């Protein structure tokens, strides 16, 4: 760790160095957060909400219903990671939990079929899903199997199909879809059966339906039959991945490429090829730059030089560090406090809603625990 800077305030360059993870040829360095009190002489680093509010930034790169990309700038890894973990495992969704098999003569075994059904993402009226639907509780040993099943915690679905020969199929046809009816069973064949008050919340546009109607569930041949009923419950990603509202929720640190000394001419083109397309741009050395002594551009007017165009696109491969001609000319790193999030929703929530929900969840966790800490029995 860098020694403290004595009694003077740290320079901008030093602050920049502190928040950069160095990607060296064979190693990484300066990976650990050091912005804590007592770490540097004459520097506070205590938690200050107003200071955080000033420094914290959000940048959106993409915001579609099912996919969002945005940057959180100015937070610690532990906080960014908490949000990521909450999005994956602690936001509830509705998924198929119980499958009642009345008949299944297809080649897919009951338990495999049930597992496949569980993984199909469903969606429906958001207000109904969030406010009307609650959590199902497993009945106790003395209770009836359905004692805890209500319209407010269970969604009922049906899937019934029998494969039959098409009478009018052409004689020379080989394609099962041409020869038979119901040869393929898709997610769209699942029918929602409203119970009790559900019709009010989940009808028309808001009906409970698979997000992608084209998910293949099973293939059948004539006289094979599937006749099942399903119950959906609300659950959490920590219980089973089928309840996770995200396909992926991940972050990466913002790449940082510093060109320390000019990279010119053919070298510049080779340098650009070391990175992902669009990361390094090629520009002509201007007259002004060429005039400046000590810049390294003297006498190179009009030649191509490498400039960093879009570091965010970089994958931080170390290709540039392998070539001796770039030695000492480039420094690779990542910004420690710049998290590029990528959230891909499975459809029950919008991707930006998911992040909002994760902040709410973390706040709720703290809000529930704080009075418990206050009222905790203190014994030493």
């Amino acid at each position, binding site marked *: 760790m860098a020694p403290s800077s004595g009694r003077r305030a740290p320079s901008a360059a030093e602050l920049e160095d502190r928040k950069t993870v160095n990607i060296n040829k064979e190693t990484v360095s300066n990976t650990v957060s050091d912005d804590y009190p007592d770490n540097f002489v004459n520097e506070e680093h205590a938690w200050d909400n107003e200071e955080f509010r000033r420094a*914290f930034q*959000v940048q959106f790169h993409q915001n579609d219903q099912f996919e969002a990309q945005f940057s959180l700038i100015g937070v610690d890894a532990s*906080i960014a990671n*908490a949000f990521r973990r909450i999005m994956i495992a602690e936001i509830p969704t509705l998924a198929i939990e119980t499958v009642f098999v009345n008949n299944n003569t297809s080649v897919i075994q009951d338990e495999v079929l049930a597992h496949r059904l569980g993984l199909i993402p469903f969606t429906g009226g958001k207000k109904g899903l969030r406010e009307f639907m609650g959590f199902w509780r497993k009945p106790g040993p003395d209770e009836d199997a359905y004692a805890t099943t209500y319209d407010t915690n269970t969604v009922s679905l049906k899937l019934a199909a029998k494969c039959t020969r098409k009478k009018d199929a052409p004689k020379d046809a080989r394609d099962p879809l041409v020869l038979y009816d119901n040869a393929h069973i898709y997610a769209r064949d699942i029918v929602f059966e409203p119970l009790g008050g559900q019709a009010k919340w989940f009808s028309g546009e808001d009906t409970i339906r698979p997000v992608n109607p084209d998910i293949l569930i099973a293939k059948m041949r004539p006289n094979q039959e599937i006749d099942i009923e399903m119950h959906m419950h609300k659950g959490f990603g920590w219980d089973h991945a089928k309840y996770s509202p995200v396909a992926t929720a991940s972050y990466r640190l913002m790449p940082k490429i510093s060109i320390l000394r000019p990279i010119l001419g053919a070298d510049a083109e080779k340098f650009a090829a070391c990175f992902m397309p669009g990361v390094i741009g090629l520009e002509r050395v201007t007259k002004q730059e060429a005039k400046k002594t000590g810049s390294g551009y003297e006498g190179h007017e009009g030649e191509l030089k490498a400039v960093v165009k879009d570091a965010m696109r970089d994958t931080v491969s170390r290709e540039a560090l392998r070539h001796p001609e770039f030695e000492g000319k480039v420094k690779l790193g990542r910004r420690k406090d710049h998290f590029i999030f990528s959230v891909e929703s499975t459809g029950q929530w919008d991707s930006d809603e998911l992040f909002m929900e994760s*902040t*709410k969840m973390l*706040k709720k966790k703290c809000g529930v625990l704080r009075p418990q800490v206050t009222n905790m029995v*203190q014994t030493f």
Partner: protein
Amino acid sequence: MPARTKARAPSAEDADMEDAAPTSAQQVAEDGEPMEEDEDNEVGEEEEAEEPQRVRILPGSTSTAASFEFLKEGHTLGNALRFIIMKNPDVEFCAYAIPHPSEEKMNLRIQTYDTTTATAALEKGLQDLEDLCDVVSEEFWTQREKFMAEKS
């Protein structure tokens, strides 16, 4: 090491720990003794009562050096809380651990200087984390609105 099949007889040390164990709210609840004695404050109290007590102070703690046990919490809260408590200048040391992956328990150790107590530092940490969440969600939504307005 082979798995132990018989319950180990409690050693003197274990027994000692048991004796020193605090009568935390959790244990009281397990014993079936009523936690709340005053039932006059109905509305607020009843909603509170729905949440079971999930945090307790572990034996051997002092006011400035304490270990807390959280039930049904993990790295999500543990690391975030550790960060925000370490940001407190009155805190000398803070760390969290999950002693065993198959137990839903998270332990948090806080050692403070004489200027505060471990419990106060934990409360401040939880409060700061709540404030942080507000700042993050406000800024996130402002930027989202801005981004969507620019796009259309």
